[in-house]
Each structure stands twice: as C-alpha cells, then as structure tokens.
C-alpha cells in the first residue's frame, strides 16, 4: 500500500502541496516572526510617481498587494497555518467523534441508532453555512453591534466557534460511518466470525478494521475539505474566525478586520473590492482555498486508485500461490501414479525422501481448508 501510494503521482502532488504550504507557513513564523513586507510607491528616474499600491499581481509578483499595500503572498503565507491548522483540528475532532459514535453505536446499540437516525436527517436539508451562521452570528458578530464591544473574551469565542463547527458536522459523518459498518457487517466472514464466538471488539479490530482503514482515511480527508469550504463560506458571510474588530480603514469606513491573517477573514474583509479594479485582493485567497481543496481531492482520488491497485495485486499473488500448490499436488499424483503403474518402487522411494516436507505441507493445507 505504502509503495503504491508513493508511486501514485496524484496522491504525491496533492499531499506534497498541502504539507509544504503548512510547513512553509510555520517556518516563516519561526524564522521571520510573521514579518509582512509593505510595498513602496514606484518612482521613475525623475522621481515622479509611476505606480502606487495596490499593485496587481503583474506589477508585484506573485500575488500583488492589498489596499494597505501589504504583500498578499506573505499575508496568505502567514494566514495559511491558521486556516489549515483550524481545518485540521476541526476535521480531526469531527472524525474522531463520529467514528467513536458511529462504530460504537452500530456495534453495541444498533436498535437505538435506528431510532435516532431519522432525527439526524434534518441536517441533510439544513445547508451547513446557513446553520453555522445562524448559531454563530450573535456571539461572533451581532454582539459587537449592540454595544460596540464583545461580552465574551477572544478565547471564549474561539472555543465556542470550534465546538459549534465540530458539532454541526458530526451527525452526517456519523451516519456515513455507521452505514459503512452496517454494510461490512452483512459480509459472510463476519457471520462466520460471530459463529466462532468472536466478541464485538475482536470483530472490530480483526475483521472490520482491515477493510475499514482505507475508507476512514478518505472520510477524514473529505472532512477537511468540507471544513475548509465551510470556513470560506463563513468568511463571505462575515463570520471571521474568533470574531472580528471594527476598525476604520483609510477611506474612513468602519470595516470588520480579521484578528489573524486567516484566509476566510481575508475573503470576508476584501469582498467589497470584487467589482473594482482591485478584484485580485479577494480573488487571491479564494484561489488559494480552491487550490488547497483540489490538492486534497487529488489525495483522495490518488489514494483510491492506489488502494484499488494494491488490492488487485494482492489477488494476483494469491491466485499464483494457489495455482502453484495445485501444480505441486498434480506433480506428486503423477509420480505416484507412474510408480504404481510401472511397479518400480525406486521412484516412490526417491519421491518420499525428496519431497516429504512438501507432501506434509500439502496434507496440512488440505486439512485446514
């Protein structure tokens, strides 16, 4: 499996991109203390102003600058670790919770799960961004309107948002995992394991997990994609991570400002520039989200292809082994047949001395099956 993954170009491209962005962001924090360069005015030889910020990606590669002339590339680099880190944490928590609940309930409390399941179906019809907005908007946004200050601390708001984002994802993922377990439980080898007296835990560890592990990985990566998407949507709806502060920008308008340079905050802050000449300011973080999500999707698809390939390979090996054994059996039969027919017992003796282990092996093999 590992080898097949390394050989798979899609998986490698996706995972390399994702982890190198994350690593670069942390590296930049550790060695450069999140320093964000500010672009200066550009002058020609006479000292006249040639161009002024915000620079477009063409004038100031690679990503241009924003309205306060900060370099967008470094802004996004600094924000990457927050966005991807938050997404990873939320996805992991969702995944672990829904795995424990889904598998646990399907194995130990299937009747209860059957009764609870219809009550979780409402989540399918409730768009996730709308639900998150409904729950979060007072605590993270409207609270600020009321008396221009939050009644909660930054840490409280952050913990609240993380918990809410975890909770709204669990029901659907949990049902998916429980469904997968249910499908596996219908297989024949589970019935035989049950007949032989395997406990449920034993069945989970020895019989379900080998089939389940690849699917779990895919579910986890999909969860990261969902969380990233949700964060981007919330950014558009002006729910910035951990709430926002109202500040006055250079034009004298009061605007929400994200407290970190987190990507969804960058989208939310700069969406108003979309129809101006400076359309790249919101576009760049949106493209970053898109590319990250596509990289994760490539990981999923590469993983699926690699695991399909690996399982096919395993089947071939097993087939070869079986035919080898059949061949051996045939050889032995042929020899003894020849020996009996000819009445020549020297051959039989020879065969006994040479192939005694082989015969034993075949004998035991037959007994076991």
């Amino acid at each position, binding site marked *: 499996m590992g080898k097949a993954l390394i050989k798979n170009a899609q998986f490698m491209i996706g995972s390399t991109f994702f982890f190198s962005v994350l690593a670069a962001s942390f590296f930049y924090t550790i060695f450069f203390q999140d320093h964000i360069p500010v672009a200066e005015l550009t002058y020609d030889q006479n000292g006249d102003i040639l161009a002024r910020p915000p620079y477009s990606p063409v004038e100031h590669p690679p990503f241009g600058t924003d309205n306060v002339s900060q370099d967008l590339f470094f802004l996004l680099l600094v924000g990457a670790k927050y966005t991807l880190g938050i997404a990873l944490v939320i996805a992991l928590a969702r995944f672990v919770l829904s795995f424990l609940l889904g598998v646990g309930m399907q194995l130990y409390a299937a009747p209860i799960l059957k009764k609870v399941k*219809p*009550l*979780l*179906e*409402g*989540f*399918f*019809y*409730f*768009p*996730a*961004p*709308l*639900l998150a*907005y*409904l*729950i*979060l*908007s*007072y*605590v993270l946004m*409207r*609270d600020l*309107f009321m008396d221009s200050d939050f*009644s*909660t601390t930054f840490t409280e708001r952050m913990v*609240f948002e993380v918990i809410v984002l975890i909770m709204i994802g669990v029901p659907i993922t949990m049902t998916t995992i429980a469904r997968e377990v249910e499908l596996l439980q219908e297989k024949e080898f589970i019935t035989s394991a049950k007949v032989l007296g395997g406990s449920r835990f034993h069945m989970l560890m020895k019989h379900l997990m080998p089939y389940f592990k690849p699917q779990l990985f895919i579910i986890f990566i999909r969860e990261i*994609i969902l969380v990233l*998407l949700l964060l*981007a*949507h919330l950014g*558009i*709806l002006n729910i910035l991570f951990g709430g926002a502060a109202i500040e006055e920008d250079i034009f004298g308008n009061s605007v929400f400002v994200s407290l970190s340079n987190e990507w969804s905050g960058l989208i939310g802050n700069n969406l108003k520039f*979309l*129809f101006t000449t400076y*359309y790249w300011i*919101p*576009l760049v973080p*949106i*493209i970053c*989200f*898109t590319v990250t*999500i*596509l990289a*994760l*999707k*490539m990981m999923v*698809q590469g993983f699926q292809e690699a695991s399909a390939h690996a399982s096919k390979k395993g089947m071939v090996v097993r087939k070869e082994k079986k035919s080898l054994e059949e061949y051996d059996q045939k050889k032995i039969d042929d020899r003894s047949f020849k020996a009996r027919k000819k009445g020549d017992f020297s051959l039989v003796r020879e065969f006994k001395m040479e192939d005694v282990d082989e015969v034993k092996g075949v004998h035991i093999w037959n007994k076991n099956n």
Partner: protein
Amino acid sequence: MRTGMKFVSIIVSILLIGSFAGMFQNGIEMSLKEFWNQFVQLIRAILNPGELTYEPLFGSTTVYPVFPGIFEYYGYSLFILVAGFCIALIGSLGLTYITFFLPYRLRKMFIRVTGILEAIPDLFIIVMFQIAIVSLYKETGLLIFEVVGGFERPVVLPLITYAVLPAILLYRVMLLTFEDELASPYVELASGKGLSKSRILWKHVLRNALFTVVNHSRTIIVLMLSNLVMLEILFNLYGLVWFMVNNLRVEIVIIGILMIFVPLFLIEACSRFFIQRITGKELAD
C-alpha cells in the same frame, strides 16, 4: 406509511436543530429549560405564521409581516433550484451522449478529471463568472447579463453559474453508470441485432442508468441547497436564503427551511415511487 413517518421525523429533527440554534441568539445560554422554551416558541410560531414579523432595516421601528411577502422570495429560490437542476440534468445528459462517441481512453481520462473538478468550491465558480462578465463589460462596454441582483431578480447568469457544479457531478455519475451498463449482455445483444449506437444509448442504457442517477440525485440536491446560500449572497439575489440571512431569526430560518424541505421531499418521494414502478428495482434509502 414509512414515507410518512420519515417526513414527520425529519420535520421534528429540523425543529430540534432550530431550538438548539435558538439557545445562542442572545449570548450563550445552554440549558435544557431554555431548549424546551425555544422548542415551544418555534412550534407556536409555525402554528401562527401570520403573526411573524420582520424589520426590513436593522434598528428600524416599522415591522412588516413575513407572510405573504416571503412567497415572492420563496418562489424565486425554488425556481432557481429546480431550473438549475433541470439545466444540469439536460447539460450532463448531452455531454454524456457526446462522450460515448469518443475513444475509450479519452472517456477514462474524463472520469478522472471530473473526479477532481467536482471538488471545486462553488465560491470560486461564482466569483470567476462575475469577474469575467464585469471585465468583459469594462473592455467592450457590453453587459451581457446583470451581475448583481436586487428586486429585478436576474435569471440567466445565476442559473448558468448555479448549474455548473451539479452538472459536473451528474456527468460523472452518468459516465460511471453508463460505463457499467455498456458491459451488460443486453447491450451486446442489441448491437448484435444491428441497432445503432445512439439508439442503444438513448433507449436501453439510459432507462437502466436512470435508476442509479436518481439514487445519486438526492446527494446532488443537498449539495445544491448549500450552494444556494453562496449564490444568493454573492449575486445579491432576493431569494429565500437572502431573506433568511438578512432577517436572521430562528423562526424565519426554520420556516424557510421547512418550506424548501416539503416540496423537495414530495418530489423525491414521487420520483422514487415512479422509478420503482418503471424499473422494478428497490431504491436504497
């Protein structure tokens, strides 16, 4: 009977979610008592929808009744949803039809590429369409479609933008199921009898593949619902979701969700019933 039970339980679950969300509308108040209060309040609001009011502007003193004004927003959203799905269905059918006249290797490549493309965020597609139209306008002074809505409620551009993602998803599902169906013996028999390829595709394969497509379309409609949020916010379309976001109250949101849920559930139940009658296969839940 089973469908009726399911219908009621989903409504109850939406109400429960709503009363859970209600606990955070004035600060964080988490207690069983507050949950129960919210639940009772929600049921009362749904039983007397005529008394529900909203303030059009933040902090204004005049209030308007939600009904019947909401139906205008509602009809538009429902139209966008259904028309978007129909466009996606027709578009993906046409594309699938064309794809099956292409060589096998190209088809395989399409399946792989759409597998990645289906993950593109709706956000990205919407923003790209908007920027393209606006920059075209800036270059040539030609405004093909209204980019930002309002009370005029534009139709063409939002619909096109909206249909892209479900079309990709449906296209992929169709490619995979058609590929499976083409391997079955009746196709061999049909081509052996000398039927043309397009006749086999349209008449025989499509009928059998439709079953799987309908099975998948529930997931696709769920995805379209969550895409509707971004569509209405970014295009500033005066639809139901826009109304909910701009007049954010638990009662309004829950009534809106129920209003979207009921027709979707009915359509799903009907199509399920008819497809079972036609194909004789049992659809999975």
